[in-house]
């Protein structure tokens, strides 16, 4: 797992630098601006920890979750439903949470 994330980030770093240094365009010729993340601390740390708890318990994050549907284990659908529910509840509570 560390190998996958680590090598993805290393290669990703190189590719993002390539886009910036060579001023690469999109395939249809438009210039590329990669939006910086908004400033913040609490939301990133607390949100990240909550995510991490679920990540480890489920053994899946929001990308692979959909790939696992293909395995035929219908339990994955409960996991995805839970993720939708969590997203929905965040939307309800957003204004009350520290960001």
């Amino acid at each position: 797992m560390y190998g996958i994330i680590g090598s993805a980030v290393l290669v990703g770093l190189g590719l993002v630098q390539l886009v910036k240094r060579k001023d690469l365009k999109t395939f249809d010729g438009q210039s590329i601006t990669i939006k910086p993340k908004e400033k913040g601390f609490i939301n990133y740390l607390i949100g990240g920890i909550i995510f991490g708890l679920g990540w480890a318990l489920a053994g899946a994050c929001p990308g692979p979750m959909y790939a696992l549907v293909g395995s035929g284990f219908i339990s994955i659908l409960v996991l995805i439903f839970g993720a939708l529910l969590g997203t929905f509840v965040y939307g309800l509570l957003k204004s009350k949470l520290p960001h």
Partner: protein
Amino acid sequence: MIVSPLPWFIAGPLIAVIMFVLIRLGKQFGMSSNLRTLCTISGAGNYSEFFRFNWKDSIWGLVVLLGVVFGGVFAFQVLKVEPPIINTETASQLKEMGFNSVNQSYFPTELFSTSSLFAIKGFAILLISGFLVGFGSRYAGGCTSGHAISGLSNLQRPSLIAVIGFFIGGLIMVHLLFPLIF
């Protein structure tokens, strides 16, 4: 056809290539945003401002999602990918916790089989873990793809904070909470 899982040094860079292609399509790599889009399509905009945005601009993300589903079907049903072999020490720890399906199934069948789905504990674990993933990724503004891969590749400090959070949460779950749950 039965194949082994791709080694990490192929799988990881491939993920980065997907990010690169999405950037060059004028998009960004982030999977958890699709959960918000799906909430909006289901009418969540009636309950919160957060879901009031033009979801039609995010359809491309759902197309990626559909591609991931098809990729999963292809890997599991056509290529019949073998279960990954887990570090021997981790495997024996998992067996002590009662996970006997280690190295035999892609997931622990103790959690993901249909029979455990109908047990309260199994169902609760799936629902709660999904909830934490959905809630946490939106609170943090991204998940492993949006922060760990895209954000870190672009040297974003917020993403580093989020990723540190991911691992704090993951380590707490595995080392402190697993013994209580299993």
